[in-house]
């Protein structure tokens, strides 16, 4: 079970990431509980998987998050993959999940997830972090509270600063 940060606490999560290769070779993997399936596989098998509340999905940074519209509410976890430091597409995916798709469940960052990105991820609506292997999970908790305010509206602070300043 991976150790993750969720809602600013360190927990063990039963959800585990299944790669596209794994599930292509053995589609039986998807029968197991708590699997996070690749979006492509999930969309392909959505009829068979409909109603499964013990499954999650993960998206590559190039996947179109809007393809999950109407399907996402049954999922307890949607994971967003960060292939490397510097690929910022998943930040937009997270915001769209929380706003356009109105997703309320866990959004988990997976892949190359590093301490100094967590605060920005949190602001985009990501509330769970499965850190890269070399990261210190306890020290990383501090990163979430680096800034007291933010100028922009974001998922965690839906009112922009200017509306507080000027009323």
């Amino acid at each position, binding site marked *: 079970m991976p150790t993750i940060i969720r809602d600013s606490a360190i927990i063990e999560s039963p959800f585990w990431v299944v790669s596209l290769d794994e599930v292509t070779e053995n589609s039986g993997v998807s029968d197991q509980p708590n699997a996070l399936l690749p979006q492509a596989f999930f969309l392909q098998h959505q009829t068979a998987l409909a109603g499964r509340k013990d499954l999650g999905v993960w998206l590559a940074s190039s996947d179109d998050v809007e393809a999950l519209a109407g399907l996402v509410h049954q999922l307890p976890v949607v994971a967003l993959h960060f292939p490397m430091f510097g*690929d910022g597409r998943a930040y*937009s995916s997270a*915001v769209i999940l929380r706003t356009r798709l109105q997703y309320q469940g866990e959004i988990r960052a997976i892949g190359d997830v590093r301490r100094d990105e967590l605060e920005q991820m949190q602001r985009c609506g990501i509330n769970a972090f499965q850190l890269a292997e070399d990261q210190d999970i306890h020290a990383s908790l501090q990163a979430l509270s680096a800034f007291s305010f933010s100028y922009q509206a974001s998922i965690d602070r839906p009112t922009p600063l200017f509306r507080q300043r000027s009323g």
Partner: protein
Amino acid sequence: MYMYDNYDQTLVDERVEQYRDQTRRFLAGELPAEEFQHLRLRNGLYIQRLAPMLRVAVPYGMLSAVQLRKLAYISRHFDRGYAHFTTRQNVQYNWPKLEEVPDLLAELASVQMHAIQTSGNCIRNTTSDQYAGVATDEIEDARPWAELIRQWSTFHPEYNWLPRKFKIAVTGAREDRAAVQVHDIGVRLIERDGVVGFQILVGGGLGRTPVIAPVIREFLDKQHLLTYLEAILRVYNRYGRRDNKYKARIKILVRAMTAEVFAERVEEEWQHLKDGAETLTDAEINRVKSFFTLPDYQSLHDKPAALTDALGLSLAFGAWHKRNVKGHQQLGYAIVNLAMKATAEAPGDASAEQLETIAELAEEYSFGEVRVTHEQNVTLADVRQDALFTLWQKLCEVGLASPNLGLLTDIICCPGGDYCSLANAKSLPVAEAIQRQFDDLDYLHDLGDLDINISGCMNACGHHHVGNIGILGVDKKGAEFYQVSIGGTASSTAALAQILGPSFARDAIPNVIQKLVNVYLERREAEEHFIDTFSRIGIQPYKDSVYA
């Protein structure tokens, strides 16, 4: 100018502490170099050929005398007594020590300055017209809008890891002094049916693939500025190319989609954001505008005797007045430009002493404020006309009275191979050689407006594509060569320069420039500027002369 409140100050202070901890972790071996690189770049710190280089943000070019003195102090204590004004209205230090940068940033924060997002693939410092608020051709002061964009883009969590760097420029005047057509986003204040709003341009740029930005929205109501920018950024963040850094700028995406399709995508995205929380309120617009009110102007007349008498007495003052002084919105006032381009000094370089002198002069003559221009000069925006002569005399004493604003020797130039690890070739010695070749001031004034822009590599920090004459350093089998182009302009009728032909060795450049100038002198009609003659006769006569 804008003054921080407790919110702004807290954010900048917290960033200093965050960066201090990141530096500590790097030095302690807890943070790998490649990871620290991403973090330091988002705070303006490059590792250069000789030492780190720190880029400090000067939002839309505005600086107070207090800030200038701090920049001077920093140049003495953390650098070698110099600062460098860049082509994006910023300031660079070329010799700070990596371990001292957190302290340097704390010094900056103490005068409401920072280095946030001055490099890296994020939204950079927003630039504007150096004459904003005083220009005679102004529709509306662009600075409040640039400040609103600065705040919105600072630490924007969704757009800190874009495909590539992202630059926004705002202008509120009829003449484009902010080069909005060669920015990732150009915001132009325009008037339509008596209402002032924005025209939005997207996808301009220089670099390897120079492009003049197309307009993607003809008119945007003011309150929608931030939500509309948000829509553009989101389309770019999601669909901009990330496989090839040379194809990652938004101009490539706009071109691949076509401007029409790109505009439709933005419009679709905007429908989700329009009228949302980021929609600007009148209260906020007025709050930010309240920082850019008119200073305490005296009631004066234009052309006072003190000015006209001095013009009658001193030809040198007259030459400076003609080139470096511009008209002002307020009767009896003038805009004064200090050309930081004395021969044998690197264009844009200012010593600590010069910075302090400028601070003093700003306090005495211009309400304690200056502006940094994208031509790497410094502007005193609010000088009484009856004080111009005494100001000029003081500028002469400290070597800041070069009367060459906009002339051939007012060269825009990047730091080049002397300092920059990206450069293919040196640029500063080329600028100096040209300045030496053209040292006759009467001749220069007769030539009139002529921009020479020099970049040491394809990254085009010297904006060579929009120089009337552009010079680009190229590497030919390990030797430094220079490609010359002609016909570019960054004005409202922006045009990209055309390459003249095969490149030249460095010592040939002054003669090449001389030949181009000679063609102009032979062929010009009446009051034509260099660029007008070029537009009329085309490139061939210049080619014939240079490659004869």
